[in-house]
């Protein structure tokens, strides 16, 4: 092989990379916003409650959407009760499904114009363009996360609760100190887990599971003493799934770990419109109504003392 050809080798490899790079840019950010409607005056659907003016940036036809004309909403699968029912977000049943459809309605989308896609939690915050307008999946708003994505305002203030089998010694705990010696479990990526490590500070390392189902198996098997979940889930689990289970108690909300928000692409202007709609729903009592419809109140679960 001649020397000249040797020198050419890295150049050729690099040229190949350059060629790849040339086709790589994906004109990032939001994909096509719906084509602007030529006749804004005819665009007001009769159902509209907020009566958008033609220059309202939140008018349906001005929103920049992933799929033109449709509101694309993501959530994980399986979608668990009481936030969703029958693993089918499009049936409008369950708290988050109901909230999503109410938000869609207030943005003047008909239920048929809402489409759901499966977005695993790990994928929801991946860099690059998102394939949903927003993701609603019991995601807690934290400042650290908000550096990477944009959150809506909170739509639910969540408390964390501890479940144990009724006949286990942990079931009688009334203070945090009594929980510290227990073998605790939680689902990965949840603020429940953060509660364990930052709030309860147990003496043993917590057990961490892919989903609540695995955590429940471990609890039933006696492999762990208690699991930490959000309170609505705790009510559902003890009422339906583990009748032998008992809500030992709940924690008072801790700053920065208490609100569920919808997740958007960073700086997606749609978030502003959703916030507007949410605050309208809060003022009108619509959100409270949905909350009462789907989530059991937490008044009868005792609070832990510090």
């Amino acid at each position: 092989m001649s020397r000249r050809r040797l020198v050419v080798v890295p150049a050729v490899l690099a040229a190949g990379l350059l060629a790849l790079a040339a086709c790589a840019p994906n004109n990032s950010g939001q994909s096509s916003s719906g084509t602007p409607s030529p006749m804004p005056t005819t665009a007001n659907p009769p159902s509209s409650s907020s009566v958008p003016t033609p220059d309202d940036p939140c008018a349906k036809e001005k929103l920049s959407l992933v799929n033109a004309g449709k509101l694309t909403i993501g959530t994980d699968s399986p979608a668990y009760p009481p936030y969703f029912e029958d693993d089918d977000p499009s049936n409008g049943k369950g708290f988050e499904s109901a909230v999503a459809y109410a938000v869609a309605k207030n943005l003047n989308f008909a239920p048929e114009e809402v489409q759901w896609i499966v977005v695993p939690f790990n994928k929801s915050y991946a860099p690059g363009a998102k394939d949903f307008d927003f993701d609603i999946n019991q995601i807690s708003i934290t400042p650290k996360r908000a550096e990477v994505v944009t959150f809506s305002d909170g739509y639910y203030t969540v408390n964390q609760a501890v479940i144990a089998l009724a006949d286990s010694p942990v079931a009688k705990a009334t203070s945090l100190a009594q929980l510290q010696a227990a073998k605790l479990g939680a689902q990965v990526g949840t603020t429940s887990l953060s509660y364990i490590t930052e709030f309860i500070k147990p003496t043993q390392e917590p057990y961490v599971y892919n989903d609540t189902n695995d955590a429940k198996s471990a609890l039933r098997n006696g492999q762990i003493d208690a699991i930490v979940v959000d309170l609505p889930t705790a009510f559902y689990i003890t009422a339906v799934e583990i009748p032998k289970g008992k809500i030992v108690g709940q924690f008072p909300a801790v700053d920065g770990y208490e609100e569920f928000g919808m997740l958007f692409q960073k700086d997606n202007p749609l978030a502003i419109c959703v916030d507007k709609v949410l605050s309208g729903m809060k003022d009108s009592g619509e959100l409270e109504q949905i909350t009462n419809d789907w989530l059991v109140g937490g008044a009868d679960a005792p609070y832990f003392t510090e």
Partner: protein
Amino acid sequence: MSADVAYVDPARAHSRKRKSRRDVLIGLGSLAVFVLLVGVVVSRLPGWPVVQETFFNLDEFVSSFPQLLSAFWLNIRIFIVAEVFILIVGMVVALARTLQAPIWLPIRVVATIYTDVFRGVPTILVILLLGFGIPALDLQGVPNSEVLWGTVALVLSYGAYVAEVFRAGLASVHPSQRMASRSLGLSSWQTNRHILLPQAVRNVVPPLLNDFISLQKDTALVSILGPIEILRRAQIDTSMSFNYTPYVAAAVIFIALTIPMSRFADWLQARTQKQRRAAATV
């Protein structure tokens, strides 16, 4: 082959030396140009700043590293214990499958079914089944430790692979070796022990190591049962900060263990080859 025995013309030796030095320079130069060009291209990709921020964030790397390292200790313990038992299981099953006499048919059948089933079933299912299934049986005196059952599941799963590797190794030894050994009066057991196995094992060291490197990473599967090992630790950190750098940090730790292992295997290979060659010249 040895240069110190044969006579070499000093002028030719000199030119050879110069040529080899030139080759090294060309190689290094080529490498430098390549690395430079790749660096320039990658850093100019439009999405690179985002990728760098989400995957190669130095602050995240530094802050997650110590916890990852301490979580890795669990992987190492699972790995070492599993490895020992995998070798035993693999060897026993491989030998069982080579039994010839008709009376051993049941053993052969069981061993064959074992390798077929456990190679075909996803490891994650075996782990779930043993880790959550056996404690659910609520048997008296049976431990319900997740790490224990996770390790047993890995042993069963990898034992099947390693059994096939050993079997291939046994098949690679020429039949004349067995015949020669038996005609010298060694028993079947002695033939296996002193003639066949040493050669077989030597032949399969590279594929065995391959399996062990793979096992090292699969120890992370035990995390589905609850214990926090390195990948789970990384996942927790990632889900809190929405930054994937902890996974990269975990990868660095894994690599730091596999590279020495690979080099050790290479060295082992080179050594046995040398010994063989030396023996052949006698």
